């Protein structure tokens, strides 16, 4: 079984009982170690071994064939593999896709949607800086100042807080006009997105993941 498939199934290592059908068989951990040993380039392991597994499960989720739990289990396995690849990230041999600064707006404590965005974007190879809930404009600005290439994702679930997205966009633009800002959350819409001048609205994290995969310079 190839690495991608093992990622998709969330088979961490030989000892993990999940999935039952693969009990006792090698998992993502072992195969990644083997690949490194065989001196396959880390970038290739990542791009052609691991990522296709995450993409596959992501697509299945968006087609409604699996559930978020399956996605999370895959992400857990993926993280184990990424742990093995860490030296290559540090040495610069592999470049991460980039950073996403994520948060729920000021006054709003709903975070389940935002947390899903986090997990799914991480699964897609992004580093996510989660600012949590009740995030002020200043906190967003500060986070981008600390990581100027970052993309920003903002979530809001209340009609009485969604307007804070507008001021966040404005403040972010003032400080860093080129920052891409994406928004989401139940009360938000495409037309609201245009109104406040954000770069895109997505009704679910896959939309964002797909969009960012399209942007060529952001591809690994």
């Amino acid at each position, binding site marked *: 079984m190839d690495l991608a498939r093992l990622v998709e199934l969330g088979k961490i290592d030989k000892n993990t009982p999940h999935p039952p059908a693969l009990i006792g068989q090698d998992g993502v951990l072992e195969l990644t170690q083997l690949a490194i040993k065989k001196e396959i380039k880390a970038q290739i392991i990542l791009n052609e071994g691991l990522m296709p597994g995450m993409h596959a499960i992501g697509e299945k*989720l968006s087609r*409604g*064939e*699996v*559930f*978020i*739990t399956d996605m*999370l*289990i895959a992400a857990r396995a993926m993280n184990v593999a990424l742990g093995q690849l860490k030296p290559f990230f540090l040495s610069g041999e592999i470049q991460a896709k980039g950073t996403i600064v994520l948060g729920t707006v000021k*006054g*709003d*404590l709903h975070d*389940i949607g935002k*947390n*899903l965005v986090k*997990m799914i974007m991480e699964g897609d190879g992004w580093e996510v800086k989660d600012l*949590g*809930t*009740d995030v002020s404009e200043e906190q967003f600005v500060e986070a981008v100042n600390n990581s100027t290439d970052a993309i920003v994702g903002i979530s809001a679930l*209340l*009609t*009485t*807080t*969604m*307007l*804070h997205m507008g001021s966040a966009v404005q403040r972010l633009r003032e400080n860093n006009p080129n920052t891409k800002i994406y928004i989401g959350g139940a*009360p938000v819409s495409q037309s*609201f997105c245009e109104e406040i001048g954000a770069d895109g609205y997505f009704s*679910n994290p896959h939309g964002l993941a797909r969009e960012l995969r399209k942007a060529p310079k952001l591809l690994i």
Partner: protein
Amino acid sequence: MTKYFGSLAIKHPDDLIFGYAPKPVSCGQGLTIGVGQVFPEINFTLPPMLINESNWNEVLSHYHNICENVLARAEKLRVPGIVMEFEHLPPMSMKPELGAEITSLIKNYLLEFYRRTGIPNALRVTVVDLRDADHPPLLRSGQRWEQTREAFILSAVAGADILSIESVGGKEVHDQALMYSDLSGIVASLGILACRDMGWLWDEIVDICKEYDVVPGGDTACGFSNTAMQMAGQGLLPATLSALVRAASAPRSLVAYEHGAIGPSKDCAYEGPIIKAITGVPISMEGKSSCCAHFSPLGNIAGAMADLWSNESVQNIKLLSGTAPEAFLELLAYDCRLFNIAENKNESRMYRDLLVRSDLEQSPEALMLEPQTVLRIARSIAQCPNPYTQTRNAIFTAFKSLQDAVDSNQLKLPSREQTWWSKIPGLLAQIPENENEAIEYLITTYHGVFNPQAYGL
């Protein structure tokens, strides 16, 4: 002052029906809930706008406008009674004077309405559980709790007739357990953490209610089972999981009544029928009439046992007919006319069964509201006094009911749910049998996610 409900207040499915509650509640301006009629409970919120000092007058004028329109329509349609629910938005609990100002604004309209029309009415105020803002939450102390408590007191003083909350104790763990479909974590977070917090919190609320002579309404597992249902609705989680979580959340919501709440329960607590069966208190429910607030697999069946019929929430925006709150009051009023004429013509059981059957085979969540199933789950809960065991029993009973329905082909699971369905027995088998093991499980698996002291652990 914990009361243990060892047996059911409603024992026969025929008696589990809209409009009737063995323990009616009288409140507000001449309103008695649970003695035969179903009343609209109208909910409303602000349109997209911020709340701050500079536009506070605009905020107030929305609530004036809502009261005028909704009550004019209620009068026009000659409703037999009405409950208005004012649900705080976060700034209104954070600065409780703000919430209190709106409370007294609405109360004045209701008093005047009663004087003018004689239509019985009451005002429910639901406070925001601000304790959620800390991660992990402190719950029993700190500024967040002080504010939440203050919000209750000022609401009571300002004229609330009923107090409610959507409390969040245990949710920090439940959120994660849910995502991983970890049934052990779900049962432990609900049966131990949430139940403990509920007991502590509702002692506080009931004390406040006693002091200010207000009715302690009840709580809702919204952050638990409605989150699950929302996510199932989006295709992110299996609907059978969402059904199991609903059943498992009933013991948690029950705790409010063990500690002195008397109902009417909160509209978005779809575990209401189970609570009604056990305690006999009147319940508020929302179904198709809350299409403005969320989509639902429970459009009709939710009404089968309701004593108040709600629209959950609608923004004060303009529709072609008028404002959205008046439009939804109209919808509720007509639905209530149907409930009440059915009861008047001695056809209520028949009508209830139509409501039940129209949704029953369409979703696992609907099965959790079928009267026989409700009683089955209620019985498995009432059987024993320990909340953890109650929760564990509830989820097992719910699973058995689902299994019966699937086996008898009454419920057809979509193919995407099948794999998950076959895994449930294994997951159920892993749920720790007793509370101590479960606490152990929580502390090892969810280390750092919650604060044991906050639960007295």
